[in-house]
């Protein structure tokens, strides 16, 4: 027994006793389950496992603190209505907003933040981290940190473009089908059914094997594969809007189909489409990352998180965490977007049970 272990258990047990004494139910349950978990962990893994638990708890506490202060910051700088909304947001949503904000900054200002260029070879392969290179070098001797920063621009940018294209195609077709109805609606519906019945990763592999892998093809292929989901949503939301009286009135005024879609249908079906945009982005982003990981996405020397994982994967067998960093960057952004979407869906559905 050394001082760390004694101190650790004294701290968790003391904290849970305090929480119980002051009748803080939630805090007590959290702290006490932490105590139980660390008992088991301590017996199984010894002191090093307890350090890991401490580190994990520290990370969680730190991110909770960051999300709390970022949420308060948003409450202060946003105008009245919006700040009220943000005030009621759960901490997870605050965390999501903060991560998205950070990624956006590093993507937009990549050339200023990154110390080296994305394809610049500055040292030997797999060089260790030093003052010059925060995260070490990759398999060709390029600075890992700079490539991560540039990856935020390339990977996220490509996924964003593909999502936007999928939305333009899917939403336009969906609203058009809802407005027009009839044979065209049926036909589009059947096409969408067929595309959706092929698993997306498999379908994109098939199409990419045929059309080759360059960035433009990649964006178009992904947009085609994901637009059916948007189509279905736009079609069903539009189906409810199209029977409204104001649409009837606009039709009687003699407005054209395009006007109806743009000025009457779209504004009234926007809310669910925006929530869907976040979800869709996650799917597209994971697909892009997966394809790049398989070597079929964004091509070298462009920095991209998916291919960085594959290129540095051999380091894992030496116990290095380098390949986990870009993979973690992918996971972190998807988690963040999902947290925000979760909050938005909860708010719009009005589920309070």
């Amino acid at each position, binding site marked *: 027994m050394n001082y760390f272990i004694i101190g650790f258990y004294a701290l968790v047990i003391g904290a849970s006793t305090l929480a119980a004494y002051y009748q803080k139910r939630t805090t007590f349950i959290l702290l006490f389950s932490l105590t139980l978990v660390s008992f088991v962990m301590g017996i199984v893994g010894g002191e090093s496992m307890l350090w890991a638990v401490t580190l994990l708890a520290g990370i969680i506490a730190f991110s909770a603190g960051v999300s709390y202060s970022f949420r308060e910051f948003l409450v202060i700088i946003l105008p009245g209505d919006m700040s009220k909304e943000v005030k009621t947001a759960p901490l997870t949503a605050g965390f999501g907003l903060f991560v998205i904000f950070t990624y956006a900054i590093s993507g937009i200002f990549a050339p200023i933040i990154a110390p080296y260029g994305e394809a610049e070879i500055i040292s030997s392969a797999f060089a260790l981290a030093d003052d010059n290179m925060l995260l070490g070098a990759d398999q060709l001797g390029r600075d890992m940190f700079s490539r991560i920063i540039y990856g935020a621009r390339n990977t996220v940018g490509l996924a964003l473009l593909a999502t936007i294209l999928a939305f333009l195609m899917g939403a336009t077709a969906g609203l058009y089908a809802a407005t027009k109805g009839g044979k065209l609606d049926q036909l589009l519906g059947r096409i969408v059914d067929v595309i959706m019945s092929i698993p997306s990763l*498999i379908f994109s592999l098939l199409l990419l094997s045929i059309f080759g892998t360059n960035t433009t093809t990649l964006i178009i292929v992904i947009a085609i594969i994901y637009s059916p989901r948007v189509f279905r949503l736009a079609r069903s939301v539009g189906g409810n809007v199209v029977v409204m009286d104001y649409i009837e009135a606009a039709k009687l005024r003699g407005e054209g189909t395009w006007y109806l879609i743009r000025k009457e249908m779209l504004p009234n079906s926007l809310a669910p489409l925006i929530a869907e945009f976040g979800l869709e982005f996650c799917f597209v982003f994971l697909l892009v990352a997966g394809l790049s990981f398989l070597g079929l996405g964004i091509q070298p020397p462009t920095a991209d998180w998916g291919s960085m994982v594959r290129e540095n994967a051999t380091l894992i067998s030496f116990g290095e965490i380098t390949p*986990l960093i870009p993979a973690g960057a992918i996971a972190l952004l998807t988690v963040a977007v999902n947290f925000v979407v*979760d909050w938005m869906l909860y708010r719009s559905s009005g589920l309070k049970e």
Partner: protein
Amino acid sequence: MGDIATIVLKRLGLGFVTLLVISIIIFFAVELLPGDIAQAVLGQGATDENLAAMRKELGLDRPAPVRYFEWLGGALTGDFGKSLVSQTPVAEAIGTRFGNTLFLATFAAVIAVPIAIFLGILVALFRNSVFDRVANVVTLTSISSPEFFLGYILILFLAVKGGYFPAIAKIDEGMSFFDKLYRTFLPALTMVLVVVAHMMRMTRASIINLLASPYVEMARLKGVPAWKVIVKHALPNAWAPVINVVALNLAYLITGVVLVEVVFVYPGIGQMLVDSVTKRDFPVVQACCLIFAATFILLNLAADVGSILTNPRLRHPK
């Protein structure tokens, strides 16, 4: 009962038509190649004689619809043509690999399904408690992580640092069943983590939906004990959504397996698909895509038929 039979038959028919359309897409997508397969394989520098010889060998001189029916007929009898790269029959290579993939997917499903349904019902019962909120955050994180992230984390901690399991899941025919289980444990665990999260969330949503319905409230108000409400009132109606959730996630397993196989160098059909996409070996790509799509559709079909059979209200559509 006659009614159910027709609905199920209709659904099966629709599934069959979808499969047919997909086989058409998979076959004719390759026809979209600039030039044709021979040109794509031999490259720009090929001489006319070489091209003509290759076209003749692949039977490209005949019209596409004829070749499609030959291909489809072959695929139905287990003959997928010859690989362009190795010149061996595709079916031979696919046979054992498909078996391996099914083994891995089944392994993962056997662990994941009971855990997910149990935990899903549990969080639905304790909804909005601390337990539920923590579960929500953990499952969201697990869903959002790419499979290769989870896979490499498991390799790092359980294989490289811990040394409990092998990092590379190499299996072959001669191994005993338990040896295979031991070697495929890490890839199976990776898929279990993702699928359990998905399934838990879907189970939770459908159970909560159910518990909010008026007849459950009625049962509660008349004083039925909580466990009896679940077992007698909620559970019979919960089967349909739960069966749906299970089948949908099994379909997800089939496609998620591609990335996991690549991470763990597992000799399955997913890795074969990726390899042949890079080599532009079209017969293999087509065969793998057809198999994946067919499995996916069959499982979705099973989900639909299962929910029709277990849900009395779906038996009489209005």
